């Protein structure tokens, strides 16, 4: 089975995307479609006393205004609002009652015949509140943090800090060289290009078809059923294309509730599109304050590490991810403590954002390692090699594979790291200060249970169906590649169906687990089809496959052929004809093999060059080399794009991105993509992506996943390069020019 897997393939949905034919959630129309416009709260905490909707209702073409007072019936218990990936606590309930829990909270939906009228009328809603004191500033809550809750089951334990080892305080005190630092990562918003949208189409009889921007159509389906007491067969959720997710679409967002409320209330199709500012009232990467202390012996290996983290969550839910575990996993240290505390703020619940936990925690860890290297007067890469571990340092077990050494070696060679002058401010180019920095990255390699249906026709066309999503990652294309190889047919003979809740079950598209899950799922189902064909082939007169076992045949070139003797083959079309069928369909669930004796991770090494204008403090990331070890790469073209995009995210995280809140009102001040800076084309220069060879047998295809690993460590490599260029260590992101100006 080889041919397409591991090659460079253009996206099979490419033509749709470059011609405008790919349809996103706001682009499905229906007769009688009405438009909803959201009215958002202007206070951060309190109660709605009165909503005056009369001004809005007087506008011609306004159909209705929906508030907590006239909304359709909704569930009255937290369990109904718990989606597949909800954190602990009590989920926010849109338009449920008069409580205001964050600034920007939806408190009314104006529904009109046109979007222009809906928007105009929404501005005519008058609201009276009783305000309560709010807190949105992490730094005001440092004395009121809580420890992350103790896990009540193994699935919760993956996010809690690792156990302490040895006597870290004593070891730190007696260490030959110590580094201690506090690092800060601000709130960051996902800012995917597509606005969150739901088009809820009310069908005669009360069924709903919902086109929603989401990373999990079945998660949204279950959620809508829970909230509105509907049956799964009456709610179908579709998301064939998604204009960027990055974690923002893992949980159902409030636009889907509002669209369904209006569709049920009015018994007609309703579309709700968030405005860009309203997108900042959804989840976000939690701000994170971390203190790291590292003690090393003079030989440059670690004696002690303490890593203490504070992140933010809402008052109603307790969101946290694994933060400190990455430093525990990566580097050997006999003495260590890890702590994670939470600050509750009157804000929406924080959420997963690309490489949640790792992007932030490894930023601090890898900057601290750089600072330790400076203190030890050794090369930062050399320090990583001295501290290298072939075993998972939390559970003392081997890795299924770990080609991080090769990442370091190949990345350093491609970058030219050996030409680095270690002294800060020692390198210049045309007047600019030049800095070189590097960092390590690590993420989980996870596989989840998934179900795939394949229908293979006699003439060699296959339809592959699974309710997963392609959020831009290339899922359509890798699914077709794996199916084509597994079934021995040309890529163009494969059609992919995904993003539809009516298809076979898939988990949400996140955590870098879909590539491994769906590719192995396709292989399993294809094997069932092969076995099915073999059973029929064995009954054919004079069959050449009489004594061949199911593992000894392959599908290739339209034939069912013996792996041992290629002359023993029958055409699939003849097999099906003999069986009196024109297609074979199989649906199989594939679960990961339990392998707790080994750790399963991806790794990376990032090398970055920055150029800093000494007078203006302007920083350019001139060059990045990202070397990634992530098992088998299914499609070298789309995989490289994922890593490339992650590096661009790292540039944003290091130098630009920060959600700013006016704490007087608890409101985001830069709730738009002009004032919230994300990298643009002119910010991005030379990026080289290397995939190192890393055979892995954790799953039959050896796939590990790529969605997160490319981001982890990038901000640290850039921050370390800025230090090397300027001699100034900036520990609070983003490293804006005001923080480096006047460095001389």
């Amino acid at each position, binding site marked *: 089975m080889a041919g397409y897997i591991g090659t460079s393939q253009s996206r099979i949905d490419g033509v749709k995307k470059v011609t*405008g034919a790919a349809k*996103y959630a706001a682009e*499905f*129309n*229906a007769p009688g*479609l009405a438009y909803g416009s959201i009215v958002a709260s202007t206070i951060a905490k309190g109660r709605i006393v009165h909503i005056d909707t009369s001004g809005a209702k007087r506008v011609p073409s306004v159909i209705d205004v929906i508030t907590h007072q006239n909304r359709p019936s909704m569930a009255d218990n937290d369990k109904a609002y718990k989606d597949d990936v909800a954190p602990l606590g009590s989920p926010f309930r849109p338009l449920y009652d008069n409580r205001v829990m964050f600034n920007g909270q939806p408190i009314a939906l104006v529904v009109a015949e046109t979007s222009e009228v809906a928007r105009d009328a929404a501005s005519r809603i008058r609201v009276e509140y009783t305000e309560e004191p709010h807190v949105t500033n992490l730094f005001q809550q440092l004395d009121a943090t809580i420890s992350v809750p103790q896990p009540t089951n193994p699935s919760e334990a993956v996010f809690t800090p690792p156990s302490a080892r040895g006597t870290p305080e004593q070891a730190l005190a007696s260490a030959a060289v110590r580094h201690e630092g506090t690092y800060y990562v601000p709130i960051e918003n996902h800012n995917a290009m597509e606005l969150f949208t739901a088009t809820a189409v009310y069908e005669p009889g009360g069924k709903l078809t919902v086109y929603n921007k989401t990373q999990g159509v079945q998660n949204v389906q279950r959620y809508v059923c829970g909230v509105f007491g509907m049956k799964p067969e009456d709610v179908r959720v579709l998301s064939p294309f998604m204009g960027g*997710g990055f974690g923002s679409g893992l949980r159902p967002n409030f636009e889907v509730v509002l669209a369904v409320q209006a569709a049920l209330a009015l018994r007609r199709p309703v579309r709700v599109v968030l405005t860009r500012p309203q997108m900042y009232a959804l989840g976000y990467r939690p701000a994170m304050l971390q203190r790291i202390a590292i003690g090393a012996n003079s030989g440059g290996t670690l004696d002690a590490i303490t890593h203490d983290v504070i992140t933010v969550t809402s008052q109603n839910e307790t969101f946290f991810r694994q933060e400190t575990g990455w430093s525990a996993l990566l580097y050997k240290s006999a003495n260590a403590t890890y702590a994670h505390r939470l600050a509750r703020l009157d804000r929406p619940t924080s959420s997963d954002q690309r490489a949640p936990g790792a992007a932030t925690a490894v930023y601090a860890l890898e900057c601290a390692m750089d600072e330790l290297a400076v203190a030890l007067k050794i090369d930062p890469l050399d320090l990583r090699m001295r501290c290298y571990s072939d075993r998972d340092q939390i559970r003392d077990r081997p890795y299924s594979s770990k080609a991080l050494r090769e990442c370091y070696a190949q990345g350093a060679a491609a970058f030219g790291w050996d030409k680095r002058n270690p002294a800060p401010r020692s390198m210049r180019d045309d007047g600019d200060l030049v800095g070189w920095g590097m960092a390590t990255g690590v993420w989980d390699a996870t596989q989840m249970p998934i179900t795939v249906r394949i229908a293979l026709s006699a003439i060699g066309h296959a339809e592959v169906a699974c309710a997963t999503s392609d959020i*831009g990652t290339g899922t359509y294309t890798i699914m077709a590649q794996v199916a084509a190889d597994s079934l021995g047919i040309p890529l163009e003979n494969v059609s992919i169906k995904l993003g539809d809740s009516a298809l076979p079950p898939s988990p949400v598209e996140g955590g870098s687990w879909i590539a491994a899950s769906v590719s192995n799922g396709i292989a399993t189902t294809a094997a069932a089809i092969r076995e099915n064909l073999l059973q029929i082939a064995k009954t054919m007169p004079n069959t050449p496959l009489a004594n061949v076992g199911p593992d000894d045949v392959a599908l290739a070139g339209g034939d069912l052929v013996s792996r041992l003797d290629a002359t023993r083959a029958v055409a699939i079309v003849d097999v099906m004809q003999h069986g009196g069928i024109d297609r074979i369909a199989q649906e199989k669930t594939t679960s990961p093999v339990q392998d707790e004796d080994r750790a399963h991770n991806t790794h990376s090494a990032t090398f970055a060059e920055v150029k800093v204008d000494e007078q203006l403090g302007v920083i350019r990331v001139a060059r990045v080399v990202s070397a990634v070890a992530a098992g088998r790469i299914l499609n070298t073209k789309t995989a490289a794009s994922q890593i490339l995009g992650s590096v661009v995210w790292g540039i944003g995280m290091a130098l630009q991105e920060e959600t700013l809140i006016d704490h007087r009102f608890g409101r985001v001040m830069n709730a738009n993509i002009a004032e919230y800076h994300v990298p643009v084309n002119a910010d991005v220069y030379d990026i080289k992506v290397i995939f190192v060879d890393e055979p892995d047998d954790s799953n039959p295809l050896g796939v590990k996943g790529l969605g997160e690993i490319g981001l982890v460590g990038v901000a640290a490599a850039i921050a370390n390069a800025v230090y090397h260029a300027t001699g100034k260590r900036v520990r609070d992101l983003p490293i804006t020019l005001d923080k480096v100006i006047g460095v001389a």
Partner: protein
Amino acid sequence: MTDPEDGPTFHPTRRDVIAAGAVVPIAMALPPGAAAQSPSVAAASGRVAVSLTINGTQHVLTIDPRTTLLDLLREHLDLTGTKKGCDQGQCGACTVLSDGRRINSCLTFAVMFEGRHITTIEGLAAGGTLHPLQQAFIDHDAFQCGYCTPGQLCSAAGLMAEGRAKTPDEIRELMSGNICRCGAYPNIVAAIQQAMGRS
């Protein structure tokens, strides 16, 4: 409804508008499913007539004067290839060509384009053949989620027509009004260079 994946069979008024052509300005541009109103009713409700040519086809519509060119395309003509990413002129996803010049269609009212020729992503390919930029974007994987892509392509087509972008640095600068959150920028620059070489 038919197969939900392809959307309901109802296609808002595009065909009807085309059929109506430039003969008389009739109110065919109402929201999907709304009852057609007579021109006089339309006038009384503050609606205005506009005639513009989109991808070579003349459209005559009677619309709410607050309708942006972007919403006209997406909501009235079902030309949903042009994307709404911010509705504030910040992201470039809505870029179309007006008489060959790049504009943010979200920042302009449709009535301002009386008599103009608008080219959208749907009009970029000639017949069944992809525009060299479209093929280059596929070849270089110059997109991931695809949402900013129509705007990137229209911007690239515009700057090529302007003849201003000669070097990768100039391309980067001139393409910086089009945000790609997936971060495909280096591939976008490579794709544009390929297309410039061909044309």
